[in-house]
């Protein structure tokens, strides 16, 4: 549930809509601000014109009839329009004033911001003898407009955010469902079910078109893989049939010749033929494993039981070679995989250790789990492998034994690497100082998830 939510929030659809919502909200806010500033400046202009006209009239009267007439004018105005009126103040040179209290005492335009009240726009005009006439207007409409707009814009923004987030979640969920459908199929195909196809909704939308495109690509891949398989089957057939004939002929020859000793040239020829066949079979097998087709047959494999049995069987072989084979295998460790191939991996590694570590060595076969992965290991305290060979060792036809004194195709560890890769396991070769340690780490989390 938690991971599903995290996945939803990380989905492209949701992120796209989240960014879109943010951008949309910002542009709504910017538009509102622009509108507000425009209206505010026009309201201020109105107030300014009003003050200007009033001042001009008052100054005209003052110039005609003096200070007394001015006072009279002002008193008349304050009494006539007590509700919506301008404010007036006349200041003497020594700072005493009459009429309204105004927080200014200079000539020229001033805008005074006030807490909890509309701003004041004031114009001061000098009179004779150091007197000063102040005319002011309260910018009440502007304040009301600001408040109204702030509330509306905040409401609009909140709605945008809610709708945007909701839409984002919905879109994200839909995207995620479609993508999950695609990736589930892709996963199955990756596991080797090449005939799997993405189901079409038939709606003709982008996802449906994508599914159609991918399906066409899969048809092509499947037919190519089938071609390759057919070709390799034919090659195998066309080579194996004559090889089989050759072997039967050689056997016939060996039976006819009186000296059928093991060192007879015919017997040697048969041995060479068998080693050709062995290399051939190993190459075909590696190719089969690398194709991933075996993944379709994965089952639950009790690796602990398999390894315990292998160690029991090989303990006798090691003993005859003057070595000791020791198991350090935790019980009940299970893995999703191909049982026969997993047995082959460890057989191969154990046999390598027996063949190359020399007499008197101790070979340790281990299997442990740390919860996230199964860690299988085969280590010996024999001659080991030089550091420069360590990285080369799993490549085809590379052999630690440069003189090729021991038999073998040189494909054994390539096969091990191919099987490990098929199981999503990581293969490490390292020095056990002395000796060689081969470690295979199988991911169990992935295996468990693919089973459910």
């Amino acid at each position: 549930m938690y991971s599903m939510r995290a996945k939803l929030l990380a989905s492209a659809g949701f992120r796209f809509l989240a960014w879109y919502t943010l951008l949309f909200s910002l542009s709504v806010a910017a538009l509102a601000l622009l509108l507000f500033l425009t209206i505010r400046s026009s309201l201020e202009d109105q107030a300014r014109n009003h003050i200007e006209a009033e001042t001009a009239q008052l100054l005209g009267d003052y110039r005609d009839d003096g200070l007394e007439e001015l006072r009279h004018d002002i008193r008349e105005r304050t009494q006539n329009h007590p509700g919506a009126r301008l404010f007036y103040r006349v200041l003497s040179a020594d700072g005493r004033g009459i009429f309204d209290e105004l927080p200014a005492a200079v000539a020229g335009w001033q805008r005074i911001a006030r807490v909890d009240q509309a701003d004041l726009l004031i114009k001061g005009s000098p009179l004779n003898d150091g007197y000063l006439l102040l005319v002011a207007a309260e910018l009440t409409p502007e304040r009301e407009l600001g408040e109204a707009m702030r509330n509306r814009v905040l409401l609009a923004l909140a709605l945008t955010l809610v709708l945007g987030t909701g839409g984002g979640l919905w879109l994200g969920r839909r995207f995620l469902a479609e993508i999950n459908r695609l990736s589930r199929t892709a996963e199955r195909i990756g596991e080797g079910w090449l005939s799997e196809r993405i189901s079409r909704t038939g709606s003709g939308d982008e996802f449906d078109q994508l599914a159609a495109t991918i399906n066409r690509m899969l048809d092509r891949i499947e037919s190519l893989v089938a071609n390759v398989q057919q070709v390799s089957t034919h090659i195998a057939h066309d080579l194996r049939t004559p090889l089989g004939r050759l072997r039967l002929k050689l056997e016939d020859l060996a039976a006819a010749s009186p000296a059928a000793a093991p060192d007879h040239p015919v017997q040697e020829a048969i041995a060479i033929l068998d080693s050709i066949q062995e290399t051939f079979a190993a190459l075909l097998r590696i190719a089969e494993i690398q194709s991933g087709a075996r993944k379709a047959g994965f089952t639950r494999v009790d690796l602990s039981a398999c390894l315990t049995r292998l160690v029991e069987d090989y303990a006798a072989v090691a003993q005859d070679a003057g070595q000791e084979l020791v198991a350090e295998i935790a019980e009940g460790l299970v893995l999703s995989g191909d049982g026969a191939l997993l047995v082959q991996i460890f057989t191969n590694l154990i046999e390598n250790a027996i063949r190359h570590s020399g007499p008197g060595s101790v070979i340790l076969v281990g299997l442990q789990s740390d919860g996230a992965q199964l860690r299988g290991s085969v280590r010996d305290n024999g001659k080991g492998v030089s550091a420069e060979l360590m990285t080369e060792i799993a490549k085809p036809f590379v052999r630690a034994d440069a003189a090729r004194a021991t038999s073998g195709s040189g494909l054994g560890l390539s096969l091990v690497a191919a099987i490990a890769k098929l199981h999503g396991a990581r293969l490490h070769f390292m020095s056990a100082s002395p000796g060689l340690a081969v470690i295979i780490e199988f991911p169990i989390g992935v295996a468990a998830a693919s089973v459910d």
Partner: protein
Amino acid sequence: MKILLIEDDCETASYVARGLREHGHSVDLASDGHEGLMLAIGDAYDALIVDRMLPKLDGLALLKALRASAIGTPVLLLTAMGGIGDKVQGFEAGGDDYLVKPFAFAELLARVQSLGRRPPLASQDKLHAGDIIMDLIKRRVSRAGQEIDLQPTEFRLLEFLLRNADRVVTRTMLLESVWNFHFDPKTNIVETHISRLRSKIDRGFSSERIRTVRGSGYVLDAR
């Protein structure tokens, strides 16, 4: 044994047929799938050797047709396809054994003879070979009344030898049925365990029961 060999490669067919006849079997030959199916249905054979890739009707289809007509003759499939999946397909179609080309004739012979008289497996709870008695329920083995203590692998090995008493079993047959190894191991695991089993079974007795057949494999003599 009366054997039908269905194989389109005439050289392989004639070598195999000659070898089988030399070992006292009677062999009929068919060179394509149709002819093979007709013969297999028309006559009673002890075993069939069927190549997987045949003209007209391929080996697997032939096998399925045969099993569909309720003919249970044991079948050894010969094939140039050695993949793990190919083997599984062969068994699923009703094959009893599977041999990949090129093969040693001795291997083929041993497998065909092992197919011949298959004892009913499930009903038996004791296996006998002369004075050797294996109790499959109690997992005990005795020779001439004397209890022999065997490791699990040695037990399985002896069981397979007893089931094929008096018949040659090859190293590959043992690897496949006792160890379930479908690859060639590089050490002498079979020889090691045979020698241990031998030392337990034959020690203190005048007659050796497990014989090595040079170039072929091993035989457990029934008496």
